């Protein structure tokens, strides 16, 4: 049987434990004597803490202890912000694990209680009496940056944490002053709740004998968690073991290190007993990071003939009550650098202002900065089309960057790796039957039915990324990955990776890479991840980077092993190395096909080391650090067709077409799955998801009763297409695909709805475009 399984949609290797309920997520793990932690959380968005009385709580049956910030003292350092964007006058106000004197958003922790079971812990948390003095509240990031707004921190003037500028303002003004056409809009990228289906959870155990802390937690990056837990607890990093067991989705929300992980660690050390905390969904919605929250003032310049000239924007990005781990990098580096998109546009300018607000901290949420950029571009392109009365497909066609194979530098200074945007575009247009649709649309309108079509052409930067670039943009870490391919004497493979997949199917995809490189059957390859003691260093799974970066490390490590195997096989068969050919797991002597050593034979002989070539070390294991020379840039075109019920404002998504190019597809089923899920997440932003705070900072969308998660009956079957343009700099040519769906789909559906509503003259609707808002827009137009 051939082991050539690259490109094959084999069933996932992780699924048997998941479909049977045998997999163990953090909260599923039991330790004897474990205490349950509950956090007393602020009901106010902004208040001084006058007093905390936990005596009644501490006295309850089954309660072991209750602690406040004062009790912790300097036992825990503040949580660090790890993306220190340069040249932006960045302020990083202190983020204590429990509030000190003041709370800054609803859900801010003020005390913890530890009890023998979780019911009692919650009872005790309810029994802690906290007296607050309410302060004025601001949740809107633009309002928060104005003079006279309530101030969250004494040392963050006007709540402005940073002002980041990209581009040359004078040059940009020049373009806008002389352009034939300038369109502008205020776009609100509403807050979203990441809603990984598994709520966050953390359990810590301290072993005084070894002075070692083990932390099981819902993490996308256990090595980063180890680093931060070490920093905040003061334990040496080699005495902290972080384990991310099965993790039930992340979407960015399990990148940051939160107060809760620090608190269980501290309490476990303090009490000498294991401590577990698992958030409820209501807590998750209050305290786990939110995504987006931009108010954008955007303009695009174009010539009357449809040549796009430039884009510029002022962005107020809500940071929430504290600066989360990677927060400053999201509305800046990961946002502004995408302003050219797939178009030949020479002028870009962005001023992004990060603003502290009395709301849950924001951070990376699927796409992280890039959906917000793609949306504003695609919105502007449609507005230009309307202004110059050109079909939006034609306008895009006219401005797409022509195909290139090896590097294309754009005005944001990025060098796109490879692309054939027109090919993906025309393929999507073809699947949609664009011209036929326009006829159908006209006929429907005559009958009083409102159909619309929306298009997004996109490219995005992922596979984060070159460490040198990470350093230059202030990311407090590297962005390489490492991997070890370890073959046992009996020819079974352990692939140890530093990344930490949590639903992406990487145990399968990465095994396919190794199987393809080395000829081992994929069932003989275990990909091991998520434990800082068992695995080599890595920076984590986010930014669509695990397949491109870890995949490259594994491919390179496998190639090193293959070279070793070739030399050893030649030696064993007493042939010259240059006479050895490799075919599907076998090393053959050229011209005599019966004379071969299988990869398993070679592995055994390497372990036995009875007969090694001069200078060759025993064993059969190789490691590789891989630092990507550039980002990878997947691209594509998405098209949506919708129908709006003008009587109710209800939107029916009739068709959704996605043509994506992520280079060669290792496992097309997994690629499709990533696109399906990403597309739904992006469409949900357009149509149904959105955080609502009231003026006092109370979260009105605090449960799934009010926050609309997308359901199966909102969607048709998706129509997927692909083109394949390898990345020139990548060992196997692959690009990331974890975020493309989310990046492309929001503007696609948004533009489709506005197209449907064009007979009414509706110019814009704030997302999510709920029936109530659509109906109101029709009435008001």
């Amino acid at each position, binding site marked *: 049987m051939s082991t050539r399984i690259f490109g094959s949609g084999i069933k996932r290797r992780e699924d048997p434990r998941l479909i049977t309920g045998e997999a163990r997520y953090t909260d599923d793990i039991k330790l004897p004597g474990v205490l349950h932690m509950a956090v007393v959380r602020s009901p106010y968005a902004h208040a001084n803490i006058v007093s905390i009385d936990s005596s009644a709580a501490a006295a309850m049956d089954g309660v072991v202890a209750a602690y406040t910030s004062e009790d912790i003292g300097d036992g825990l350092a503040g949580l660090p912000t790890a993306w220190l964007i340069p040249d932006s006058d960045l302020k990083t106000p202190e983020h204590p694990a429990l509030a000190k004197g003041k709370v800054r958003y609803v859900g801010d922790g003020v005390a913890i209680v530890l009890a023998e079971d*979780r*019911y009692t812990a*919650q*009872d005790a948390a*309810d029994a802690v009496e906290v007296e607050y003095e309410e302060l004025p509240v601001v949740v809107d990031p633009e309002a928060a940056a104005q003079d006279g707004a309530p101030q969250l921190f004494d040392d963050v003037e006007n709540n402005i944490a940073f002002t980041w500028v990209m581009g040359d303002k004078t040059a940009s003004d020049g373009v806008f002053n002389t352009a034939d056409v300038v369109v502008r809009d205020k776009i609100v990228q509403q807050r979203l709740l990441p809603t990984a289906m598994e709520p966050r959870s953390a359990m810590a155990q301290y072993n005084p004998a070894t002075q070692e802390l083990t932390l099981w937690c819902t993490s996308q990056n256990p090595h980063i968690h180890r680093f931060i837990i070490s920093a905040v607890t003061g334990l040496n990093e080699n005495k902290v073991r972080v384990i991310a067991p099965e993790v039930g989705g992340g979407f960015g929300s399990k990148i940051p290190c939160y107060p809760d992980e620090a608190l269980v660690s501290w309490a476990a050390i303090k009490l000498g007993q294991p401590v577990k905390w698992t958030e*409820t969904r*209501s807590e998750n919605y209050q305290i786990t990071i939110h995504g987006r929250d931009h108010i954008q003032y955007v303009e695009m310049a174009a010539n009357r003939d449809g040549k796009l000239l430039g884009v510029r924007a002022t962005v107020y990005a809500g940071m929430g009550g504290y600066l989360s781990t990677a927060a400053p990098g999201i509305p800046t580096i990961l946002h502004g650098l995408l302003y050219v998109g797939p178009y030949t546009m020479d002028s870009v300018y962005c001023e992004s202002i990060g603003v502290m607000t009395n709301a849950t901290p924001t951070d990376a949420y699927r796409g992280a900065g890039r959906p917000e950029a793609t949306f504003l571009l695609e919105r502007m392109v449609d507005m230009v089309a309307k202004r110059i009365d050109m079909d939006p497909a034609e306008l895009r066609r006219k401005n797409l960057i022509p195909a290139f194979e090896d590097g294309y530098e754009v005005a944001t200074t990025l060098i796109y790796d490879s692309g054939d945007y027109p090919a993906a575009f025309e393929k999507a247009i073809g699947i949609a039957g664009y011209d036929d649709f326009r006829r159908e649309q006209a006929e429907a309108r005559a009958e009083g039915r409102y159909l619309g079509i929306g298009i997004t052409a996109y490219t995005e930067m992922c596979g984060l990324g070159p460490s040198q670039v990470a350093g230059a943009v202030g990311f407090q870490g590297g962005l390489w990955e490492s991997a070890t391919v370890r073959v046992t004497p009996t020819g079974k493979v352990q692939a140890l990776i530093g990344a930490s997949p949590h639903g992406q199917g990487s145990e399968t995809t990465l095994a396919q890479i190794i199987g393809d490189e080395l000829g081992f059957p994929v069932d003989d390859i275990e990909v091991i991840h998520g434990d800082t003691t068992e695995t080599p260093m890595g920076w984590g799974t986010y930014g669509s980077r695990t397949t491109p970066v870890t995949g490259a490390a594994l491919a390179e490590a496998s190639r090193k092993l293959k070279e070793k195997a070739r030399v050893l096989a030649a030696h064993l068969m007493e042939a010259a190395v240059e006479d050895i050919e490799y075919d599907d797991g076998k090393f053959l002597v050229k011209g005599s096909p019966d004379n071969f050593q299988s990869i398993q034979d070679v592995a055994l002989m390497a372990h036995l080391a009875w007969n090694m070539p001069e200078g060759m070390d025993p064993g059969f294991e190789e490691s590789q650090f891989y630092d990507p020379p550039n980002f990878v840039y997947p691209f594509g075109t998405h098209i949506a067709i919708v129908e709006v019920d003008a*009587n*109710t404002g*209800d939107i029916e998504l009739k068709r959704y077409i996605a043509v994506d190019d992520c280079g060669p597809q290792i496992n097309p089923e997994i690629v499709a799955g990533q696109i399906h899920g990403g597309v739904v997440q992006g469409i949900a932003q357009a149509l*149904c998801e959105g955080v*609502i705070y*009231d003026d006092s900072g109370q979260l*009105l969308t605090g*449960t*799934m*009763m*009010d*926050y*609309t*998660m997308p*359901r199966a009956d*909102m969607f048709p079957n998706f129509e997927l297409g692909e083109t394949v343009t390898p990345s020139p700099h990548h060992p196997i040519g692959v690009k990331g695909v974890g975020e493309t769906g989310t990046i492309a789909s929001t503007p696609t559906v948004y533009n489709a709805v506005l197209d449907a509503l064009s007979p009414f003259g509706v110019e814009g609707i704030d997302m999510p475009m*709920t*029936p*109530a808002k659509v*109906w*109101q827009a029709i009435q008001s137009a």
Partner: protein
Amino acid sequence: MWPNKFDYQRAESVDQALELIGDEGKFLAGGHSLLPVMKLRLSAPEQLVDIGRIDSLRGISANGGLTIGATATHAEIAASGDVQSMCGALADACGGVGDQAVRNFGTIGGNIAHADPASDPPTVLVACGASINIQGADGSRSVDAEAFFVDLFETDLDDGELITSVSLPNCSDCQCAYVKFPHPASRYAIVGVAVCLKMDGGTCAQADVAVGGATVKAVKCAGAEAALAGSTLDDAALNAAAEAVKADIADWLAGDVAYPESYRQQMAGVYLKRAVKAAAG
């Protein structure tokens, strides 16, 4: 989330349930209205008396009209041939409560005792002239559905009283329907409209209409009924009824930030037309 502490007792009979229930107690049937609010600690009864196993509260019987036991589940009601033939609108409404798993265990008695204004069955009960049969320490009584639902989460039930069943007139010679606009997150009604039409040939002899979801309680809509009665349910009558229904509910409107009162009021008109069309089939 999980509830506060409470005492739990299981009653084997209605009499025992009425004996057991204390001042701070609540009856528990399926628990699908009560437990969610207890889990969020919005309600913290000190005692639950489980009536889920009392035989006399179960089942659906058809004897001239319909009698539906308080612990009949939404799924049982939706699937009942008797309910489908004698009050199709109630089958529609119960078939649209929550989701399948919720319908499997949520009961009609629990639902109406909770009196969530956005829940579906009350709207049909009000439209179709149901009565709620109640037993208390001092005996039993029966209340018209319209009088039973007093206000937001407020009913005519006194402390210690138990809903035993719901009675509905035989509506098999009427044409009735319930149509709702579900909230995309909770699946409760943004607006739900129940209509029950008595047709005489092509003319509507009598119309009963109630609206929920858009209102603090299920509201009987006399104006819309008058606009439909005597008409052939032509467009003019439907338009008039749609306008009338908005006036009928004007004093009772409910809404929230995402779906404000004004929107729900307008949608009551749209969904009234849809309900009439569904009923007239």
